[in-house]
């Protein structure tokens, strides 16, 4: 029913602008070796300590599962000591008030109080910002399609609702909420 990109949020005072998936795995992973902002090559003005404060989500969240899978593979684990928050919005508002923090959340939750990083796959490759165009093109590395699941064949009412979501009005709601609408292929239709 749409696409979503997971943006990496930092405080606006943070001089860091780009990051690679490899560096993110070193920061967030259980066996990762980057624990300070100096390890990422920056000093954050206004941060009380050099430690990278990791903001994450609780383990029942789809965002958490997807981020872990993309970054750390099927059997990876997050580093212990991440601050596990309840909702996508809380992650963004907490980062806006903590200069030494870094977190991930849907790109639709961006506010002027935070900054998103450009993400590249590996060192030396182009780093892309989390925009709708980059999500659809697949160039932004942490993007995922959003699905609606039904248990078995959907009933008539549910089918109508799903058609509405995929129709023009539903997709307009997807777009205004900050997510990426489905790209219509000429002549095809989505199930």
């Amino acid at each position, binding site marked *: 029913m749409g696409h979503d990109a997971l943006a990496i949020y930092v405080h606006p005072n943070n001089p860091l602008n780009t990051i690679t998936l490899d560096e993110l795995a070193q920061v967030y992973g259980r066996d990762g070796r980057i624990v300070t902002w100096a390890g990422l090559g920056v000093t954050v003005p206004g*941060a009380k300590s050099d430690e990278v404060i990791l903001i994450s989500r609780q*383990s*029942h969240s789809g965002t958490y599962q997807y981020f872990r899978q993309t970054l750390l593979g099927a*059997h990876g*684990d997050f580093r*212990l000591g991440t*601050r596990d928050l309840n909702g996508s919005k809380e992650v963004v*508002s*907490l980062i806006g*008030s903590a200069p030494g923090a870094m977190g991930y959340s849907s790109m639709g939750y961006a506010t002027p109080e935070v900054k998103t990083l450009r993400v590249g796959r590996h060192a030396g490759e182009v780093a892309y910002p989390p925009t709708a165009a980059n999500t659809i093109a697949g160039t932004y590395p942490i993007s995922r399609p959003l699905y609606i699941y039904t248990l078995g064949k959907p009933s008539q009412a549910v089918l109508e609702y799903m058609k509405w979501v995929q129709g023009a009005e539903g997709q307009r709601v997807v777009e205004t909420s900050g997510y990426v609408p489905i790209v219509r292929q000429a002549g095809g239709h989505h199930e």
Partner: protein
Amino acid sequence: MNKFWKASASRNRWEMLQEAAVENLIRLCGLSAILFVFGIFLFVFREGSGALTSGQFNLFDFLAGPEWNPTSTGGTRFGTLPLLTGTLAVTLLAMAIAVPVGLGGTIFISEFCSPFWRETLKVSIEFLAAIPSVVWGFIGLMVMSPLIVALTGAPIGLSVLNGGIILALMSVPIIASIGEDALKAVPDAYREAAIAAGATRWQLRPCEPHLSWGD
């Protein structure tokens, strides 16, 4: 005469039956409260007993293991030591703040207040006690966290201090409310006897041992 006797006897029996029925209904309601609470424990234990009897359960690892990661795809770890220490730390801090403040408020409202302030404060405390804990959590995240960062220079405001203060704020109204009820239950005879023996209002505080009945 006979007719009246029989009529009143049957009416009496009917009333006695009604009385017994209602009494048993109320007894059932009271018992059901206890039964439901026990039911919660029973069902949770039944669902979890599979893990306890699985042969892989090690009580020492469970209680003293330093890592809690039940949803890991690489290797699940079930050590509850961080959970236990977190709860203990937050609770001890909260009680250190809440008990003196709550008891102090209780004694003030019950012994030293003018009647107007007593009613006002009691109503306010009941309102505060009714605030849902979700709202307290939100206050902790949005209000207390930036405050702690600004006042203590911590890198982030999500900490034991934050949790302890919010828990204390949650507990004070409940402590004050229950304590006030308990102090009201102290027989006036005790107070009057103390005053007759020449005690000042401050020296009346030995009424406090009766507060233990309030839990």
